[in-house]
Protein backbone atom coordinates (compact mmCIF):
# COMPACT_ATOMS: atom_id res chain seq x y z
CA UNK A 1 0.00 0.00 0.00
CA UNK A 2 1.29 3.44 -0.88
CA UNK A 3 2.00 5.73 2.02
CA UNK A 4 2.69 8.89 0.06
CA UNK A 5 0.68 10.96 -2.36
CA UNK A 6 1.73 13.61 -4.75
CA UNK A 7 0.06 17.00 -4.64
CA UNK A 8 0.87 20.27 -6.32
CA UNK A 9 1.60 23.14 -3.95
CA UNK A 10 2.06 26.58 -5.51
CA UNK A 11 2.96 24.95 -8.80
CA UNK A 12 5.48 22.46 -7.31
CA UNK A 13 4.90 18.70 -7.24
CA UNK A 14 5.53 17.42 -3.72
CA UNK A 15 5.13 14.14 -1.83
CA UNK A 16 3.13 14.09 1.37
CA UNK A 17 1.73 11.40 3.61
CA UNK A 18 -1.75 10.16 2.88
CA UNK A 19 -4.39 11.71 5.10
CA UNK A 20 -2.70 15.10 5.35
CA UNK A 21 -5.13 17.96 5.93
CA UNK A 22 -4.75 21.51 4.65
CA UNK A 23 -4.02 22.56 8.24
CA UNK A 24 -1.26 19.91 8.49
CA UNK A 25 0.25 21.16 5.24
CA UNK A 26 0.38 24.72 6.53
CA UNK A 27 2.03 23.56 9.76
CA UNK A 28 4.60 21.56 7.80
CA UNK A 29 5.37 24.64 5.75
CA UNK A 30 5.57 26.71 8.93
CA UNK A 31 2.87 29.13 7.73
CA UNK A 32 0.50 30.96 10.05
CA UNK A 33 -3.10 30.10 9.23
CA UNK A 34 -4.34 33.62 9.91
CA UNK A 35 -1.91 35.08 7.37
CA UNK A 36 -2.76 33.02 4.31
CA UNK A 37 -5.52 32.22 1.86
CA UNK A 38 -5.79 28.69 0.52
CA UNK A 39 -7.29 27.66 -2.77
CA UNK A 40 -7.85 23.91 -3.22
CA UNK A 41 -8.56 22.89 -6.80
CA UNK A 42 -9.73 26.47 -7.49
CA UNK A 43 -12.06 26.53 -4.46
CA UNK A 44 -11.19 29.12 -1.81
CA UNK A 45 -11.38 27.56 1.65
CA UNK A 46 -12.62 29.15 4.85
CA UNK A 47 -10.04 29.07 7.66
CA UNK A 48 -12.34 26.91 9.74
CA UNK A 49 -12.12 24.24 7.03
CA UNK A 50 -8.32 23.95 7.02
CA UNK A 51 -8.17 21.20 9.62
CA UNK A 52 -11.17 19.36 8.21
CA UNK A 53 -10.14 19.16 4.57
CA UNK A 54 -8.07 16.10 3.67
CA UNK A 55 -5.83 16.31 0.66
CA UNK A 56 -5.74 13.60 -1.96
CA UNK A 57 -3.47 12.51 -4.81
CA UNK A 58 -3.35 15.06 -7.61
CA UNK A 59 -4.84 17.95 -5.62
CA UNK A 60 -3.72 21.41 -6.55
CA UNK A 61 -3.18 23.73 -3.64
CA UNK A 62 -2.42 27.43 -3.88
CA UNK A 63 -1.28 29.26 -0.75
CA UNK A 64 -1.22 33.03 -0.92
CA UNK A 65 -0.51 35.92 1.40
CA UNK A 66 -0.04 39.67 1.33
CA UNK A 67 3.19 41.03 -0.06
CA UNK A 68 4.51 44.51 -0.70
CA UNK A 69 2.77 46.14 -3.64
CA UNK A 70 1.24 49.36 -4.76
CA UNK A 71 -0.23 48.84 -8.17
CA UNK A 72 0.66 47.30 -11.47
CA UNK A 73 3.16 44.57 -12.16
CA UNK A 74 6.02 45.34 -9.77
CA UNK A 75 4.19 43.48 -7.07
CA UNK A 76 4.26 40.23 -9.05
CA UNK A 77 7.78 39.52 -7.81
CA UNK A 78 6.74 36.55 -5.68
CA UNK A 79 4.89 34.87 -8.50
CA UNK A 80 1.28 34.94 -9.45
CA UNK A 81 -1.23 32.20 -10.06
CA UNK A 82 -0.83 30.60 -13.43
CA UNK A 83 -4.01 31.75 -15.21
CA UNK A 84 -3.21 35.39 -14.48
CA UNK A 85 -1.22 37.07 -17.25
CA UNK A 86 2.44 37.01 -16.30
CA UNK A 87 4.71 39.93 -16.85
CA UNK A 88 8.36 39.05 -17.32
Amino acid at each position, binding site marked *: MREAMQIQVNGEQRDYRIGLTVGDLLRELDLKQERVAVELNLEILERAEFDRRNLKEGDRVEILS*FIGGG*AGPESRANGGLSPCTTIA
Partner: protein
Amino acid sequence: MHDDRLIIAGREFRSRLWVGTGKYKDFAQTKLAIETSGADVVTVAVRRVNITDRSKENLLDYVDPKRYTILPNTAGCYTVEDAVRYARLARAAGVSDLVKLEVLGDEKTLFPDTAGLIEAAKILIKEGFIVLPYTNDDPIVARKLVDIGCPAVMPLAAPIGSGLGIRNPYNLKIIMETVKVPIIVDAGVGTASDAALAMEYGADAVLMNTAIAGAEDPIAMAEAMKYAVHAGRLAYKAGRIPRKLYATASSPIEGML
Protein backbone atom coordinates in the same frame (compact mmCIF):
# COMPACT_ATOMS: atom_id res chain seq x y z
CA MET B 1 -7.21 68.95 11.50
CA HIS B 2 -8.36 66.35 13.97
CA ASP B 3 -11.99 66.97 13.05
CA ASP B 4 -11.22 66.58 9.35
CA ARG B 5 -11.73 62.84 9.10
CA LEU B 6 -12.12 60.97 5.89
CA ILE B 7 -15.05 58.55 6.01
CA ILE B 8 -15.55 55.79 3.44
CA ALA B 9 -18.28 53.16 3.80
CA GLY B 10 -18.61 54.00 7.49
CA ARG B 11 -14.86 53.64 8.16
CA GLU B 12 -12.96 56.61 9.51
CA PHE B 13 -9.45 57.44 8.38
CA ARG B 14 -7.01 59.84 10.06
CA SER B 15 -4.65 60.31 7.19
CA ARG B 16 -5.37 61.54 3.70
CA LEU B 17 -2.13 60.08 2.44
CA TRP B 18 -2.40 56.39 1.59
CA VAL B 19 0.68 54.45 0.61
CA GLY B 20 1.71 51.30 -1.22
CA THR B 21 4.22 48.80 0.12
CA GLY B 22 6.05 47.75 -3.06
CA LYS B 23 9.53 48.54 -4.38
CA TYR B 24 11.21 49.18 -1.03
CA LYS B 25 14.72 47.88 -0.31
CA ASP B 26 13.47 45.70 2.54
CA PHE B 27 10.66 45.42 5.08
CA ALA B 28 12.50 47.63 7.59
CA GLN B 29 12.57 50.47 5.06
CA THR B 30 8.92 49.83 4.16
CA LYS B 31 7.96 50.13 7.81
CA LEU B 32 9.95 53.30 8.43
CA ALA B 33 8.63 54.98 5.28
CA ILE B 34 5.02 54.20 6.22
CA GLU B 35 5.52 55.44 9.78
CA THR B 36 7.16 58.63 8.54
CA SER B 37 4.39 59.26 5.99
CA GLY B 38 1.75 59.17 8.72
CA ALA B 39 -0.47 57.05 6.46
CA ASP B 40 -3.04 54.81 8.11
CA VAL B 41 -4.07 52.95 4.97
CA VAL B 42 -1.53 50.75 3.23
CA THR B 43 -2.13 48.82 0.08
CA VAL B 44 -0.73 45.33 -0.43
CA ALA B 45 -0.73 42.71 -3.17
CA VAL B 46 -1.75 39.07 -2.90
CA ARG B 47 0.75 36.50 -4.14
CA ARG B 48 1.85 32.91 -3.71
CA VAL B 49 3.88 32.38 -0.57
CA ASN B 50 7.42 31.13 -1.08
CA ILE B 51 7.24 27.55 0.12
CA THR B 52 10.87 26.68 -0.54
CA ASP B 53 12.60 29.54 1.28
CA ARG B 54 12.23 28.96 5.02
CA SER B 55 13.86 32.25 5.91
CA LYS B 56 10.91 34.16 4.56
CA GLU B 57 9.55 37.06 6.51
CA ASN B 58 6.02 38.30 6.26
CA LEU B 59 5.12 41.89 5.39
CA LEU B 60 2.53 41.85 8.17
CA ASP B 61 5.33 41.32 10.73
CA TYR B 62 6.37 44.86 9.84
CA VAL B 63 3.03 46.46 8.95
CA ASP B 64 0.74 45.70 11.86
CA PRO B 65 -2.85 45.11 10.68
CA LYS B 66 -4.06 46.34 14.08
CA ARG B 67 -2.45 49.69 13.49
CA TYR B 68 -3.07 50.14 9.77
CA THR B 69 -6.00 49.49 7.49
CA ILE B 70 -4.72 46.88 5.08
CA LEU B 71 -6.11 47.54 1.61
CA PRO B 72 -5.45 44.53 -0.64
CA ASN B 73 -5.28 45.25 -4.34
CA THR B 74 -5.73 43.18 -7.47
CA ALA B 75 -2.55 44.56 -9.02
CA GLY B 76 -1.33 42.67 -12.05
CA CYS B 77 -4.78 41.42 -13.10
CA TYR B 78 -5.76 41.97 -16.72
CA THR B 79 -9.09 40.16 -16.82
CA VAL B 80 -12.35 40.35 -14.87
CA GLU B 81 -11.91 36.68 -13.84
CA ASP B 82 -8.42 37.22 -12.42
CA ALA B 83 -9.37 40.40 -10.59
CA VAL B 84 -12.40 38.71 -9.00
CA ARG B 85 -10.30 35.67 -8.05
CA TYR B 86 -7.58 37.77 -6.41
CA ALA B 87 -10.15 39.90 -4.58
CA ARG B 88 -11.75 36.75 -3.13
CA LEU B 89 -8.31 35.42 -2.14
CA ALA B 90 -7.49 38.75 -0.52
CA ARG B 91 -10.65 38.55 1.55
CA ALA B 92 -9.78 34.98 2.56
CA ALA B 93 -6.24 36.02 3.55
CA GLY B 94 -7.31 39.10 5.45
CA VAL B 95 -9.90 40.34 7.80
CA SER B 96 -12.04 42.75 5.81
CA ASP B 97 -14.14 43.18 2.69
CA LEU B 98 -12.07 46.12 1.44
CA VAL B 99 -10.43 45.78 -1.94
CA LYS B 100 -8.65 48.18 -4.23
CA LEU B 101 -9.89 46.85 -7.54
CA GLU B 102 -7.59 47.01 -10.54
CA VAL B 103 -8.37 45.55 -13.94
CA LEU B 104 -5.53 46.64 -16.17
CA GLY B 105 -5.79 47.26 -19.88
CA ASP B 106 -2.25 46.68 -21.11
CA GLU B 107 1.26 46.22 -19.83
CA LYS B 108 2.77 49.33 -21.33
CA THR B 109 0.42 51.94 -19.88
CA LEU B 110 -1.18 49.96 -17.04
CA PHE B 111 -4.24 52.07 -17.73
CA PRO B 112 -7.43 50.62 -16.29
CA ASP B 113 -9.69 48.55 -18.52
CA THR B 114 -12.74 50.49 -17.43
CA ALA B 115 -15.29 48.13 -19.04
CA GLY B 116 -13.71 45.21 -17.19
CA LEU B 117 -13.46 47.30 -14.03
CA ILE B 118 -17.19 48.03 -13.97
CA GLU B 119 -18.01 44.37 -14.63
CA ALA B 120 -15.69 43.11 -11.88
CA ALA B 121 -16.94 45.77 -9.45
CA LYS B 122 -20.55 44.65 -9.99
CA ILE B 123 -19.68 41.03 -9.20
CA LEU B 124 -17.68 41.90 -6.07
CA ILE B 125 -20.23 44.40 -4.71
CA LYS B 126 -22.88 41.70 -5.02
CA GLU B 127 -20.62 39.48 -2.90
CA GLY B 128 -20.39 42.12 -0.18
CA PHE B 129 -17.01 43.64 -1.02
CA ILE B 130 -16.26 47.29 -0.38
CA VAL B 131 -14.82 48.10 -3.78
CA LEU B 132 -12.45 51.03 -4.21
CA PRO B 133 -11.85 51.09 -7.96
CA TYR B 134 -8.62 52.24 -9.58
CA THR B 135 -9.99 54.08 -12.60
CA ASN B 136 -9.10 56.44 -15.38
CA ASP B 137 -9.61 60.20 -15.14
CA ASP B 138 -12.92 59.76 -16.95
CA PRO B 139 -15.86 61.48 -15.21
CA ILE B 140 -18.47 59.24 -16.86
CA VAL B 141 -16.77 56.03 -15.74
CA ALA B 142 -16.35 57.50 -12.24
CA ARG B 143 -20.08 58.23 -12.13
CA LYS B 144 -20.97 54.73 -13.32
CA LEU B 145 -18.75 53.19 -10.63
CA VAL B 146 -20.55 55.22 -7.99
CA ASP B 147 -23.94 54.30 -9.46
CA ILE B 148 -23.21 50.59 -9.09
CA GLY B 149 -22.20 51.03 -5.44
CA CYS B 150 -18.52 51.96 -5.10
CA PRO B 151 -18.18 54.09 -1.92
CA ALA B 152 -15.17 55.97 -3.33
CA VAL B 153 -13.35 56.22 -6.66
CA MET B 154 -9.63 56.27 -7.29
CA PRO B 155 -8.85 58.08 -10.54
CA LEU B 156 -5.25 58.14 -11.69
CA ALA B 157 -3.15 61.29 -11.96
CA ALA B 158 -0.91 59.66 -14.59
CA PRO B 159 0.23 56.11 -15.44
CA ILE B 160 1.34 53.98 -12.48
CA GLY B 161 4.94 54.65 -11.55
CA SER B 162 5.35 57.36 -14.21
CA GLY B 163 5.86 60.30 -11.85
CA LEU B 164 4.27 62.60 -14.43
CA GLY B 165 1.97 64.32 -11.96
CA ILE B 166 -1.59 65.32 -12.75
CA ARG B 167 -1.96 65.07 -16.51
CA ASN B 168 -5.60 66.08 -16.72
CA PRO B 169 -6.50 68.42 -13.86
CA TYR B 170 -9.71 69.53 -15.57
CA ASN B 171 -11.10 66.02 -15.77
CA LEU B 172 -10.18 65.43 -12.13
CA LYS B 173 -12.01 68.62 -11.20
CA ILE B 174 -15.08 67.49 -13.12
CA ILE B 175 -14.98 64.15 -11.27
CA MET B 176 -14.70 65.99 -7.95
CA GLU B 177 -17.66 68.19 -8.81
CA THR B 178 -19.93 65.50 -10.17
CA VAL B 179 -19.26 62.51 -7.97
CA LYS B 180 -20.57 62.64 -4.43
CA VAL B 181 -18.23 60.10 -2.86
CA PRO B 182 -14.62 60.53 -1.71
CA ILE B 183 -12.06 60.82 -4.52
CA ILE B 184 -8.66 59.29 -3.93
CA VAL B 185 -6.13 60.30 -6.55
CA ASP B 186 -4.14 57.15 -7.20
CA ALA B 187 -0.98 56.69 -9.23
CA GLY B 188 1.28 58.98 -11.21
CA VAL B 189 2.37 61.38 -8.47
CA GLY B 190 6.06 62.27 -8.85
CA THR B 191 6.87 64.69 -6.08
CA ALA B 192 5.39 66.66 -3.21
CA SER B 193 3.89 69.46 -5.30
CA ASP B 194 1.87 66.92 -7.33
CA ALA B 195 0.30 65.59 -4.14
CA ALA B 196 -0.36 69.10 -2.83
CA LEU B 197 -2.03 70.06 -6.13
CA ALA B 198 -4.29 67.01 -6.06
CA MET B 199 -5.44 67.99 -2.57
CA GLU B 200 -5.83 71.68 -3.54
CA TYR B 201 -8.11 70.62 -6.40
CA GLY B 202 -10.30 68.93 -3.83
CA ALA B 203 -9.19 65.32 -3.74
CA ASP B 204 -10.13 63.61 -0.47
CA ALA B 205 -6.91 61.61 -0.35
CA VAL B 206 -3.89 60.63 -2.42
CA LEU B 207 -2.47 57.13 -2.80
CA MET B 208 1.10 56.64 -3.93
CA ASN B 209 3.88 54.09 -3.87
CA THR B 210 6.66 54.66 -6.41
CA ALA B 211 6.98 58.39 -5.68
CA ILE B 212 8.12 57.49 -2.17
CA ALA B 213 9.72 54.05 -2.61
CA GLY B 214 11.58 55.09 -5.76
CA ALA B 215 12.95 58.39 -4.40
CA GLU B 216 16.68 58.58 -3.69
CA ASP B 217 15.79 58.96 -0.02
CA PRO B 218 12.40 57.27 0.47
CA ILE B 219 12.11 58.22 4.13
CA ALA B 220 12.68 61.93 3.43
CA MET B 221 10.17 61.76 0.56
CA ALA B 222 7.63 60.07 2.83
CA GLU B 223 7.93 63.06 5.17
CA ALA B 224 7.66 65.52 2.27
CA MET B 225 4.47 63.79 1.08
CA LYS B 226 2.95 63.94 4.53
CA TYR B 227 3.35 67.72 4.63
CA ALA B 228 2.32 68.13 0.98
CA VAL B 229 -0.97 66.31 1.46
CA HIS B 230 -1.61 68.19 4.70
CA ALA B 231 -0.77 71.58 3.15
CA GLY B 232 -2.85 70.87 0.06
CA ARG B 233 -5.84 69.90 2.17
CA LEU B 234 -5.53 73.01 4.36
CA ALA B 235 -5.25 75.25 1.29
CA TYR B 236 -8.32 73.62 -0.28
CA LYS B 237 -10.34 74.18 2.88
CA ALA B 238 -9.01 77.71 3.30
CA GLY B 239 -10.21 78.68 -0.19
CA ARG B 240 -7.65 80.20 -2.51
CA ILE B 241 -7.88 83.70 -3.98
CA PRO B 242 -9.07 84.01 -7.56
CA ARG B 243 -6.46 84.39 -10.29
CA LYS B 244 -6.35 87.91 -11.78
CA LEU B 245 -4.38 89.32 -14.65
CA TYR B 246 -3.30 92.57 -12.93
CA ALA B 247 -1.88 93.51 -9.56
CA THR B 248 -3.94 94.45 -6.52
CA ALA B 249 -1.96 96.43 -3.95
CA SER B 250 -1.82 94.83 -0.55
CA SER B 251 -0.72 98.03 1.23
CA PRO B 252 -3.13 100.99 1.63
CA ILE B 253 -2.68 104.19 -0.42
CA GLU B 254 -3.87 106.45 2.45
CA GLY B 255 -1.11 108.04 4.52
CA MET B 256 1.39 108.15 1.70
CA LEU B 257 3.39 111.37 1.25
